């Protein structure tokens, strides 16, 4: 069997990649994709602990995370379309009206 720690290391690495992408990329769709990577890393952690403790609750949480990810993608992409329509650009640095 695979030790749970290996899965957790993989999950941490994926979460790190997601965080890096969120901070380094400037395209707003790339930011949304990074958020998806982070959500998946968390999902993997939930499933590992669900398997470890022989409890189904962890997998139920993954189910709910999936629903939230779907809602987030729908609203986020609608915002992307609205942003592209107004600015002709997806660069988040261009959207600085609220910046002091």
């Amino acid at each position, binding site marked *: *069997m*695979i030790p749970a720690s*290996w*899965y957790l290391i*993989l999950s941490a*690495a*994926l979460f790190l*990649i*997601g965080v*890096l*992408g969120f901070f*380094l*990329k400037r*395209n707003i*769709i*790339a930011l*949304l*994709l*990074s958020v*998806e*990577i982070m959500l*998946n890393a968390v*999902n*993997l952690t939930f*499933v*590992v602990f*669900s*398997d470890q403790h*022989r409890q*189904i*609750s962890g*997998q*139920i949480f*993954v*189910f*709910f995370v*999936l*629903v*939230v*990810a*779907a*809602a*987030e*993608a*729908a*609203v986020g*992409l*609608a*915002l*992307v*379309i*609205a942003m*592209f*329509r107004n600015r002709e650009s*997806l660069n988040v640095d261009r959207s600085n009206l609220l910046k002091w």
Partner: protein
Amino acid sequence: MIQILFFFFAAVAAGAAINVLVQKHVLYSALSLILMLTAMSVLFILLRADFLAVIQVIVYAGAIMVLFVFVIMLLNLPEDEDGADRLRWLKFIGIPLGLFFFFLVGATVWNVEPGSGTQAPFVGSPQAIGRALFTDYLLPFEVTSLLILIALVGAVVFAKKDL
């Protein structure tokens, strides 16, 4: 065997996740993310979360990522300079692979044995998930439908040009 599968698909997931960041064009990032999601679903199978593995492919890779790819293609982002010629050789790989997949699925469906139906459900079976979802987690499950409705209305409001 399990170790080999784990390391292979863990490497695929991590590599695809890194590739999401490395790619210049966001469409390739999205396609790479689909690869990562598929590798994650194999890891779910290794963890005996069968239902989630299937859901991961159908909902995540099948529905959410289609939304992403659709929006990326709809916006027709400017930085895509490479022509279609660069992908011409792919059909020599893609057509045999597609045929192979078709025959693989066909052979699997052809050789399937009817199950006895008396096996005890294990941790991640759809039966166990469904039972938990409709007993202990009934209220969150119903609230989920409200969340989806709000997201639907919100997406329409945001994306519409003028209401």
